[in-house]
């Protein structure tokens, strides 16, 4: 079973088209293994990206050096999945 310890979901709000294309560039950096939960649409619409632990620091540095604002929507994905699983099992019981 695949687990997601340390994976975070970042919510990025691009300010303008320049930042939009910088975020789009992230899609092509396949070594980061990013999972776009909400794709790049237009400026001001949030982009949600699941970032594996091994890419977190690099991605955050990339965003910060480009002046792209982001927040951490999910601190640790596995914690949420464990809660979801627990809820399913207790409801089933």
């Amino acid at each position: 079973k695949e687990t997601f310890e340390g994976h975070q979901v970042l919510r990025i709000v691009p300010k303008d088209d320049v930042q939009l294309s910088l975020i789009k560039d992230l899609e092509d950096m396949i070594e980061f293994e990013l999972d776009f939960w909400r794709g790049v649409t237009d400026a001001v619409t949030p982009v949600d990206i699941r970032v594996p632990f091994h890419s977190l620091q690099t991605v955050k540095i990339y965003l910060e050096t480009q002046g792209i604002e982001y927040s951490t929507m999910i601190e640790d994905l596995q914690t949420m999945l464990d809660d979801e699983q627990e809820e399913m099992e207790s409801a089933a019981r």
Partner: protein
Amino acid sequence: QPRNTDSYDYGRYHPINEIYDFQDMLVAENPNMVSKIVIGQSYEGRPLNVLKFSTGGTNRPAIWIDTGIHSREWVTQASGQWFAKKIVTDYGRDPTLTAILNKMDIFLEIVTNPDGYYYTHNNNRMWRKTRKPNPGSNCVGVDPNRNWDAGFGGPGASGRPCSETYHGPRANSESEVKSIVDFVKSHGNFKAFISIHSYSQMLLYPYGYTRTPVKDQAELHSLAKKAITDLASLYGTRYRYGSIISTIYQASGGTIDWTYNQGIKYSYTFELRDTGRYGFILPPSQIIPTAQETWLALMAIMDHTYKNPY
């Protein structure tokens, strides 16, 4: 195990076997209205079950609703189960739905990507695609919402098997897609086609693969506005609406682009809620509110389809 669909728990996520049991219970409890049609098999051999809601006639004008084509979007399959129960509960009670079902059929495919759904429960909660291996690649699966014969392989899908938006080796390469294509073509009398995804609160109509507006754009736009207004009336969930390409991004090989090009005018895609910051991991407490508000939008689209035969 719930003894009937009244005691079934719509407020939680269910593994695939429980959803299949639910479908069989609903059919058994409503033999005069609900039947189950197996339109094909998934790659791993699971049945592609479609519930048919009909009060008679033959090959009546029909409405299609599917959920779960992207397997990790769990709130959609969960909402689909609630819709199924709502239809049998409201027929004979709600005059609008009763009028629709007295003249039209409704087809509902709840687990449109069963292999992927099973995989999210047992292997990888984040799985989105089908589960067919890709020759020559370590990566498995095709995005079933990029595999349709509408702008297939164009910009807005990926040619890389490891991508989440991989379009596949050719249009309709995925049995989960091909089975719907064949069913829709053989039925030949669908008037509305609604494919339900999550999340980001949008109601979208064609096209996604081209900027050329559909010829029915004005009507589809105003109906979408009515639908999201009805949706918001319950809990205030705010939706955006418009064509796929102008509202989100270019996406080729998409479901409703193909259905619209088949002549099914009322073709829509929903992106259901995440009103907070949960993304695909929407708490089960939000399943029923999501289904309830979405139902109001579905009723607006179905009622318009019924009142505007073509």
